Structures are given as C-alpha cells and as structure tokens.
C-alpha cells in the first residue's frame, strides 16, 4: 500500500516536473536567443513573457490536424507518440536526490541508452511516414547521425561503469565523493583524459538530441523543416516537447555520470537542488551553443564522430583500464 502511494506521488511529481520543464524550456530558449541577439525575447504575454508557452500550447491545440494524401497513416500518426514515450519513461530511473529516486534499477544506465535508441527510430518513422522527399532525406540523415554518435557515448559510459563497478545511477552518484575534485570529470587518478571524456560525452548528447550544430534532421534551411515538415498542430508540438524532454534526459545523464549528480561541490548540503542547478547549467550551455554556431555539413558530422570522437573514447577506455589495473 505504501509502495503504491509512493509510486503515485512520484508519478504526479514527475508529471508536474516534466510538464513545467517542457513548456518553459521553450521560454528559456527564446529568451536566451533574444538576449544573445541584442533583442528581448517574448515580452508581452504575461510578465517577462512567462505566459508565452501557455499561448503557444493553446495555439497548437487549436490547429487542424492535416494528414497528407500520400502519407502512410499508421506510421504518420505513431511517430509523435513514439518519440515522446521513451523520453518520458526514462525519468523513472533518474536520481534527483539521495533518496529521491522513483525506482532504483541496477541496470539503469543500459535502460537509458536502450530507450534513447528508440527515439532515433521514431524520427525515421516520422520522416518516412510523411510521404515527402524532403522528410525522407532528413529522416535518413537523422538516423545515421544517431547511430554514429551513440558509439562514443556508450564507450564513454563504459569508462564510468568500469570506475564505479555498477550500472545503477544512484550508485554512480554516491561513489563520486562530496567535494568537486572528486567528481568524475576531475578524477585524474582514474584516467588522465577524464575531462576529455566529459567533452566527448557532452558533444554526443548534443548530437543525440539533434541540437545545433548537429540539427540536420530538423531545422534545415536547405530542406525546409526536415522530418517534421508535414506535421502541424499538436503533432509538431509533440515533436518539440520530445526534443526538450530528450534534452533534459541528456543533461541529467551528463550530470549524473560526470558532475556528481546531487552532490554538493563543498560537501555541505547535498540534495536535489544541486542536481537541478547542475542540470539547468548544462541546459543553458546547450542553448548558448545553439545560438552561436552554424550547422555542420553532414559529412563533417560523420567525420567528427568516426574520426575524432571514437578514437578518443577508445583511447580513454584503454587508459582507464590501465590506470585501474595499475593503481
């Protein structure tokens, strides 16, 4: 009975957290973009534009859902749902605080990566099901990008698993000590290339969530709007929300694996507030990067992964193994 109440409470809490985040990350992005570009972002709807996501949501819900004539109906209608579900599901395993985990899985890390791959598949389904040449091209590009960047991500995660000895996310955070030099990113005693590892993982998160400079799948200037060209109204809304949900998952994973999760940098008051601070700092970095850099070419993207990130992560893996064995 207790367990049931606990689960219900967590579900409600997560739903609220998720809903607020998905709506207001759009606001953060637009305001950030505005101030970087010497202008204000949304300002008129509510104080500081805070009611803008509400207005956007109402607008999207009031639009007509058109299905193009030569679209594949089951695929077309499945894709937005299929992209949203894994992202939402993954919140079950994330440790917000020491005892604030909905459910501790001892294979938490693997579960994360497994469900993230489903997200990549649903982009292809969306692109194919639209019946539009542009969307198909964009969908295939997005899949090949997803596959190429999962590899360095997984290899870097194996590093962490080797250091920690467990795939349980809460355990990984516990093993990183309280002070910030004990966080995984600075643990040079485990491997001298740990900061590089962090950078590799960060870049892979950028690519996995389809953010600029790796957003060839979605907001092309070249191919109109990529895999969600044919979606209107709430279908498009679901794609956008799924992108932000993936963003939150990616940043939380980076925080947990490298930045010490809910640990405080000076050992004072660990708790979920530190987790949120670090996560939002990383999200701000994502937004900052988006509005600074142009898009890479497709070949440049694949080159970066196969020729730079994968060699680095493999070298790092070997070094970590060496250090663990020797020291």
């Amino acid at each position, binding site marked *: 009975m207790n367990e049931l109440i606990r689960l219900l409470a967590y579900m409600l809490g997560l739903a609220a957290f998720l809903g607020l985040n998905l709506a207001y990350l759009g606001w953060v992005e637009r305001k950030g973009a505005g*101030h970087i*570009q*010497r*202008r204000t972002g949304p300002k008129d709807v509510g104080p500081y534009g805070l009611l803008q996501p509400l207005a956007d949501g109402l607008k999207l819900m009031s639009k007509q859902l058109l299905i193009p004539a030569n679209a594949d109906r089951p695929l077309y209608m499945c894709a937005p749902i299929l992209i949203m579900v894994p992202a939402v599901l993954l919140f079950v395993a994330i440790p917000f605080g020491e005892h604030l985990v909905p459910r501790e899985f001892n294979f938490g890390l693997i579960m994360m990566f497994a469900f993230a791959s489903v997200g990549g598949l649903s982009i292809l389904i969306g692109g194919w099901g639209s019946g539009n040449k542009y969307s198909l091209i964009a969908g295939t590009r997005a899949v090949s990008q997803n596959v190429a960047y999962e590899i360095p991500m997984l290899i870097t995660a194996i590093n962490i698993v080797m250091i920690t000895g467990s795939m349980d996310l809460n355990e990984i955070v516990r093993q990183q000590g309280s002070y910030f030099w004990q966080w995984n990113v600075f643990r040079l005693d485990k491997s001298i290339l740990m900061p590089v590892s962090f950078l590799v993982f960060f870049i892979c998160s950028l690519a996995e969530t389809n953010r600029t400079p790796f957003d060839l799948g979605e907001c092309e200037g070249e191919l109109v709007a990529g895999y969600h060209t044919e979606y209107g109204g709430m279908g498009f809304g679901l794609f956008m929300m799924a992108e932000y949900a993936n963003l939150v998952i990616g940043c939380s994973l980076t925080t947990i694996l490298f930045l010490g999760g809910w640990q405080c940098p000076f050992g004072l008051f660990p708790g979920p507030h530190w987790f949120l601070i670090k996560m939002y700092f990383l999200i701000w970095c994502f937004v*900052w990067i988006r*509005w*600074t*850099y142009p898009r890479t070419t497709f070949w440049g993207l694949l080159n970066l992964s196969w020729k730079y990130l994968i060699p680095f992560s493999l070298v790092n893996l070997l070094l970590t193994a060496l250090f663990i064995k020797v020291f």
Partner: protein
Amino acid sequence: MSGYIKDIITGLKSLVVGLQITNKEFLTKPITLQYPHQSVKMYPRYRGHIELLKDTETGTHRCITCGMCEKGCPSGSITVKSEKRPGVKGKVLTAYILNFTTCSLCGQCVENCKPEAIGFSNEYNLASTRREDYIFDLLQRLHPEGVPEPEVDPELLKKELEKKEAAKKEGAAKKEPAKKAPAKEGGASKAEEKS
C-alpha cells in the same frame, strides 16, 4: 599526428572564442524599441504620402491646378479636379485625389510643383483593411472642417459680368445677319438651279 592534434586544438579554441563573444552580447542591454509603447523617431525628410501644404498667410493651399504633378507622375496616381468660379482668378481646386496604392514616392510631383503646394508628410501609421481607405482626397485632409470658399474679387467679378454682357450682345447681333445669309444663299442656289 601532430597536425591532427593541432587541428583539434585550433578548432576548440575558435569555438570557445565564439562562445565568449555571444556571452558578452548576452550581458549587454537589448537595443529593441518596443514599438507600440515607444514611438519611432521620425526624420523631417521622411517620405510619407504627399499632402497639400498650408500657406501661413492665406490659411489655405497654394495649388494653381496647373496639373504638372498629374502629368509628371509615372504611375498616374494623381487626379486634380478643378472648376472655374465667377469672380475668382484662375481655376479653383475642388478635389485632389491621390491613389496611394500606386504611388511609389518618387517625388516627381513635389519637384514639378512650381508654387510648392505639395510636400511629403510624416505619416507611417497607415493600416487598413479596405483598398478604398488609400484613395486620399488631399483637399479634404487639409481642411477637414470644410473647404473655405475662395475670395471673390469684386472688380474682377464686375469685369467678368461686363464681358459676359458684351459677349451676349455680340452673339445676338451675329445671329440676325446669320439668319439672312443662309436665306440669301439658299435663294442664290435656287436661282442657279433654275438657270
């Protein structure tokens, strides 16, 4: 191998420099002018649609209805309507129609106007849902309270009336010999036919 590493380092450095620049811009104040709440600074030479200028001495316009603006307009946007009133020198402007939907603000009309009766206005706030709202009558816009009647010059009026009388008498005098002349000519032709 060293080229590979060097590439990576210069690449990363350029990325960090870019981030520094956007960070600096993020921390500076935005330059947006919040338009409906703040108004835009208008320059005196701004080219809005043309308007009839009010002469400070006479209190009305200076247009002499020569029509040079109408002839000079490349798009044919101007129509000048005028009529002759008794006792007033020259023609009186009754309507000055500007079709702003075809005006390209080139300034030929303003340049060609000798008495400098028209000039550019400063209006930029023109928004409407109907095409008819853009057919301006500049005379109405100059005198929204009512177009003042032009001054009647009594001497000129007397001269015109005298001219009219003189012309009437001439016309009457011409008619009578004209009546006889066709009768004579008709008689002559008949006489020719007979002979």
